[in-house]
């Protein structure tokens, strides 16, 4: 049970305070309700590039990192297709420094040309390091457009192509800031060795004066239900063949999300999971195989990924995966197996309470979903799932005409 207090400033900034006096540290986590899905299709990769620019100095503070490091703090950020999340960890005695820094960059950025030029290069190197210069690195650049034909999830957070980043201009950066980076579109969680009164006072001082800005009303084209089997095969300089079979699944807030998440656990969580047991151990077809959900807010993906053994054909390997998926459709899972994945989920939630920053990030994310307290109801939502629901969802998802298959063939 993660306890918290919650209030909203007049400018719309939502604030959550989580007291944890077992640590001398504090965390400040700010989630901005903007991700790669909010980008212009001709300017993809922008939310992520922008995340880099948030460290390039703000209107009153020329550099961001240095004053934070000077008080013993650390920070980082990540961008997903749905959100952009910034976080600071610092000694709780120096909490105010975090408020000073974060409120100034929510107020306004410095918009330096030099910073833009350098971060364009840095992000292009990131693009190369993670997506182009690694075996299988470009998988998400290929898979997303295969699965999504309408929704902006069709591009990865890094962007469709290097040129979109190369062409980013300072005017675009300013417009993006104005549209998305204001109190109304943000959720702040302050956790650790802090008190609600202290946080309220610091919010009034540093964040309350920031103008509310414009409310961004999201209106994205939703992905229509998939009704045909899709397939792409690439021959690439990779050492081994690799198979990705992906399925469209409902978004994070759908009532069936928990059953579907447990399906991915049944398939792939731990050494006892079905895919590993059946296809790596009992009948060796793959050297490794995994299944997971993207957990997206809009229509998501359930991905099954495996590297077949060298003596196994792609056809055999695919058939073996489908056989396991069809088992979930044909037979209800045994009681013990359902208990097992529920137990694992439950203990994971207990272990998660050991990590302050994770708690803060989760509170912010669930507040975005509608209510931070949903975080505390996760376990009961998983425990309520029945074997019948799992079978129903398996049948709904594991259809050929809901599948997109990407095959990497190793260039010999």
């Amino acid at each position, binding site marked *: 049970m993660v306890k918290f207090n919650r209030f909203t400033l007049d400018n719309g900034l939502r604030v959550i305070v989580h007291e944890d006096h077992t640590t001398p540290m504090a965390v400040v986590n700010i989630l901005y309700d903007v991700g790669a899905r909010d980008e212009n299709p001709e300017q993809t990769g922008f939310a992520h590039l922008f995340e880099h620019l948030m460290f390039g100095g703000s209107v009153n503070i020329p550099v961001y990192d240095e004053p934070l490091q000077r008080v013993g703090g650390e920070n980082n950020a990540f961008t997903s297709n749905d959100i952009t999340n910034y976080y600071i960890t610092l000694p709780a005695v120096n909490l105010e420094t975090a408020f000073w820094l974060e409120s100034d960059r929510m107020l306004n950025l410095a918009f330096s040309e030099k910073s833009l030029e350098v971060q364009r290069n840095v992000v292009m190197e990131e693009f190369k390091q993670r997506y182009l210069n690694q075996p299988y690195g470009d998988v998400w650049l290929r898979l997303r457009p295969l699965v999504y034909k309408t929704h902006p999830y069709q591009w990865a957070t890094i962007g469709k192509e290097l040129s979109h980043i190369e062409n980013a201009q300072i005017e675009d950066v300013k417009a993006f800031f104005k549209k998305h980076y204001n109190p109304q579109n943000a959720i702040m969680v302050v956790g650790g060795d802090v008190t609600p009164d202290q946080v309220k006072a610091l919010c009034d001082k540093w964040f309350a004066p920031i103008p509310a800005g414009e409310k961004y009303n999201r209106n994205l084209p939703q992905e229509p239900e998939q009704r045909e089997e899709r397939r792409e095969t690439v021959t690439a300089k990779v050492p081994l063949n690799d198979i990705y079979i992906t399925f469209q699944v409902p978004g994070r807030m759908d009532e069936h999300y928990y059953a579907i998440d447990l399906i991915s656990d049944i398939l792939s969580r731990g050494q006892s999971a079905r895919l590993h047991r059946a296809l790596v151990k009992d009948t060796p077809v793959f050297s490794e195989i995994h299944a997971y959900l993207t957990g997206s807010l809009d229509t998501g993906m359930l991905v099954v990924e495996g590297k077949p053994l060298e003596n196994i054909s792609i056809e055999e390997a695919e058939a073996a995966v489908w056989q396991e998926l069809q088992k979930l459709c044909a037979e209800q899972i045994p009681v*013990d197996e359902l208990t097992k994945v529920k137990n694992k989920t439950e203990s994971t939630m207990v272990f998660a309470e050991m990590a302050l920053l994770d708690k803060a990030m989760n509170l912010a994310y669930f507040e975005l979903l509608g209510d931070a307290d949903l975080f505390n109801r996760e376990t009961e939502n998983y425990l309520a799932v029945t074997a019948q629901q799992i079978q129903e969802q398996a049948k709904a998802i594991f259809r050929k005409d809901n599948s997109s298959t990407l095959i990497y063939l190793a260039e010999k």
Partner: protein
Amino acid sequence: MLDRTIAPESKAIDHINLIKPGHKVLANGCQVFWFNSGDQELVRIEWIFGNLRFNPAKPLLNLAVNSLLTEGTSKLNAAQIADQIDYYGAFLQADYGYDQSQLTLYSLNRHLGNTLPVIKSILTDSQFPEKEVETFIRNQQQKLQVSLQKNDMLARRAFNKALYGNTIYGLTSELKDFEQLQRADLLQHFENMYQPSNCTLVIAGKVDEATLNQITSAFEADWDNAAQAADTAQPELQPAAERFYFTEKPQALQSAIRMGVQMVNRSHPDFPALQVLNTVLGGYFGSRLMANIREDKGYTYGIGSGITSLRDAGAFFIATEVGADVCRSAVNEIEKEINLLKTEQISEEELSLVRNYMLGSLLGSLENVFSHADKFKNVYFSGLDLDYYNRYTEIVKTVTAEQLQQLANQYLHFDDFYKVIVGKYE
């Protein structure tokens, strides 16, 4: 009116409070350390064993035995081990390290009665079934083929080989090494290594009296030492004479750079001050290497330096992946930054920032009771005690720019660095 240009007042970190472990030695020689703290009813238990003397003819035994621990005993096959652990919501992992290898169990206290017997069976009775060994070999060979396509991995391998030679630290496994793994060798290695007198048990979490007794009694009874004590001494390291290694990858968009040199480890009095020097150079986001090569030049997504502390060695290294077309420029900038540490004293402004950053970072690394146990392991396996952290904080607070310059001149000679480049050298 709020003046946003002025930073709020701040406080320096004065000291850190570390949890001291309880300690006892079991009748069979197993060392037990425990850390009792936390609100959650859970524990992390680590069984840590010193690796056996490296055998160049059978280089993978330490790794393979550790990886195969969860693959079957005479009473539980691999599937039963996995079922039992997963059913009780526990997590079990086997980790191979340079000096020690270990098993780690994360379990809710209330399930220890069901999870501990699995570990007991593993540590007393692992069987290394032929079928599981075959699966391991096949899958590891596939994984290795993928790793060998990654430039940073190739650079790391070449660097370790050059620094340490054909020893456990320099080990670079080849596909053929996996083929020679034999069940008989694995069994013999297991019996000699995984015995109580070579085991350190570290328990962290809700470790009340009853929990402690439950764990220790399980590993005191019916767990006996082998006839021979474990031989964990390692042969001399064999650094290579050649200092420069270039592997060309004509298609590379980026080149991996790894360079550095052998250095003292944590047990040496200079170590804490060298950590300060390292932090200035490449040990944090605002470091000189990051500021110059990422934030000013935009050559890379990331660059960093570090000091590795092992039982019988230490090493200083710099690692990055840079645009292939700017590889030579990046190497030149690294050289400039090294030389700057030797020719110019670090300003008090920069040094005070690094001091505060390091102390804040130490404080922040103590997130929960597990982190306290981790801090303890760092010093314990270096032959030190928790006083080390008092010395460390004192030195971080007081080391002078002059001393750091001296250390740079004593330890950092760019021309002597081992340099590995994989990709293009343009």
